[in-house]
């Protein structure tokens, strides 16, 4: 275990950024979002404030080019054969340039235990067959420095999914850190984490492992007091498709849903994307971007399928997190970060959905 004074963090960040790209929460126009560290960027409050988006972009960006197709037409007078010169098809050459995979290490600082679990969820999808090369390259080169949640918020409920926000060393992060008084404690967990620590050792002082015990105990007791950490997942998970899919609760609760993409875009685990071609001046840019099951054109097929109403789209999102994903990968794909709870314009969210089903069950029980 190591430590560094919080007032010296900028020196630490600057040192890390000397050797590799550093992504961390940055305050910009009043909001906290993960971004690339630059000298002079605003890091005030980044240790204690929840970012709007989760940091998922570091591994799976909202928008990325997959490849470019370029068209080159040789001018007619450069061709000797007259017949060839007259044929535009022959004169046109297409070249395909695949976007380079990430080949340099980078550090992402300040993810929370829930965010790291979110990456684990993405791993299930992108690192299993067929493997997503773009994602895999970023995962291989990314070094995650996770931060224990010094001040959990009322929207947090990660413990419901078995995540420990007090001790990120239990997560899949490479380094775990804690705020202890005026210092940040730093504990490498993996080989990657050890290697990073070695590079910045000159800035760190050694600390006793027990230095973080009080902080862990404190966070754990705060989590106990938060309203949503008592949420019950009974009735969700594997094998519940028919029961939950056909429930009439969806119809009762979906109405306020605007069909915007806020919940999906701030979510650390939403992994659906769309692929499209963008016509540029001299070719085509094939790109992919996050999609949202809340949008009317999500998985839209020529025949007008797949989901034609907002209640179906609404149901899809929660069924995916709480039933389909557990069915397929044996884990929930909600990590309880609470961002949708904070950000839904209509104050609808996964917690309310779970509670609505729980109430329905109770009422049904009372009526028997």
């Amino acid at each position, binding site marked *: 275990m190591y430590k560094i004074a919080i007032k010296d963090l900028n020196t630490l960040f600057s040192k890390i950024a000397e050797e590799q790209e550093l992504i961390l929460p940055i305050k*910009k*126009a*009043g*909001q906290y*979002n993960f971004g690339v560290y630059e000298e002079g960027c605003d890091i005030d409050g980044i240790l204690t404030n929840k970012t*709007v*988006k989760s940091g998922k972009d570091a591994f799976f960006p*909202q*928008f990325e080019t997959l490849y470019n197709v370029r068209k080159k037409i040789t001018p007619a007078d450069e061709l000797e054969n007259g017949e060839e010169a007259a044929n535009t098809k022959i004169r046109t050459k297409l070249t395909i340039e695949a976007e380079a995979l990430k080949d340099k290490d980078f550090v992402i600082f300040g993810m929370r235990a829930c965010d790291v679990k979110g990456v684990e969820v993405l791993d299930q999808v992108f690192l299993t067959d067929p493997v997503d090369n773009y994602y895999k390259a970023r995962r291989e080169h990314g070094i995650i420095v996770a931060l224990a949640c010094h*001040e*959990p*918020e*009322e*929207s947090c409920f990660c413990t419901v999914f078995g995540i420990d926000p007090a001790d990120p060393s239990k997560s899949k992060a490479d380094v775990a850190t804690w705020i202890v008084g005026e210092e940040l404690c730093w504990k490498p967990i993996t080989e990657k984490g050890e290697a990073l620590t070695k590079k910045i050792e000159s800035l760190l002082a050694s600390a006793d492992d027990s230095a973080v015990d009080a902080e862990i105990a404190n966070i754990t007791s*705060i989590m106990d*007091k*938060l*309203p949503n950490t008592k949420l019950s997942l009974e009735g969700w998970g594997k094998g519940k498709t028919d029961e939950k899919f056909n429930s009439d609760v969806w119809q009762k609760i979906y*109405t*306020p849903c*605007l*069909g*915007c*993409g*806020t919940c*999906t*875009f*701030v979510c650390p685990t939403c992994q659906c994307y*769309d692929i*499209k*071609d*963008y*016509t540029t001046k001299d070719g085509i*840019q094939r*790109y992919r*971007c*996050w*999609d*949202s099951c809340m*949008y*009317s*054109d999500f998985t*839209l097929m020529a025949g007008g399928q797949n989901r034609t109403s907002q209640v179906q789209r609404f149901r899809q999102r929660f069924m995916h997190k709480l039933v389909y994903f557990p069915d397929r990968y044996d884990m929930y794909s909600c990590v309880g970060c609470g961002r949708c*709870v904070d*950000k839904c*314009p*209509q*104050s*609808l969210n996964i*917690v*309310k959905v779970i*509670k609505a089903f729980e109430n329905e069950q109770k009422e049904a029980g009372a009526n028997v």
Partner: protein
Amino acid sequence: MQGLIDRLTALLSDGTVARVIGWKKGDMAYNPEPHMFETAESLKDFVYDGFCGANLSKMMIEASKLEGKTAVCLKPCDTYSFNQLIREHRVVRENAYIIGVGCRGKLDIEKIKKGNKGITSISGTELDGSDDIKIETIYGDKNISYKDALLDRCHVCKGKDHMIFDEVWGESKDTADQERFAEVEKIEAMTPEEKFAFFRNELSKCIRCNACRNVCPACSCRKCIFDNTKFDAQQKANVVSFEERMFHIIRAFHVAGRCTDCGECSRVCPEGIPLHLFNRKFIKDIDKFYGEFQAGKDPEAQSPLTDFTFEDIEPGERG
């Protein structure tokens, strides 16, 4: 609030209305949600407090198509949106029974959360509540003034009168204490470079969730141009950095002359982008070039951008 619930219950029970659009109690201290109540019994979950900022007028587009009348709770500023929707033939006046609910300004939870984490309860935010609200958090309790926690839009309140209603419940208060166009003037005074930097900084946060569009009562097209799948660009991502600006500017143009300045776009933006500034700039210019105009004040009034007069300003003139 019980008086309002009683009145709504009576309206439902005597068959005046078939349903009620209002707000349903949240599961936290500050998150009531817009809701359609279909039975008198379900009104036990009805709530009306400082966090009922959502403008419910747009929900009447769908409710207008249903059998029977719908009671809809509208705050004074929401009634402007409703009038505008009547003018655009998007809602059917006869199918609505408008309860003009009193308003003393609505609260901005983002402002309250700054410095107040772990909120377990907030009290005193009802219409007849106190000047101070009490915030209890797991980290300690605090009192703050209701006024300091108001949404920005309430500081430029359009007034306490409902523009359209069938009956009014509760007293309203004009909460305006700032110049409506002060923020716009501040930006107008910037150099072009400063303006560009300001908007780029704000709009670069945009995550293209479309919450601003979907909540906007003026954005009531059955199918948005940005949802067109034949588009090269996407409505869900910024393909080029220009796009994040383009989307919002096109939207501002599209709602120009129709935007009532209800401020929902800025209220719902997950990234806190002051989107209302675009619309308010248009409103200011319309006032200047065509004479003072408030969209939604009178559903019969001529609209400056869609009605031609010989006095209209010529393109290129700057007044």
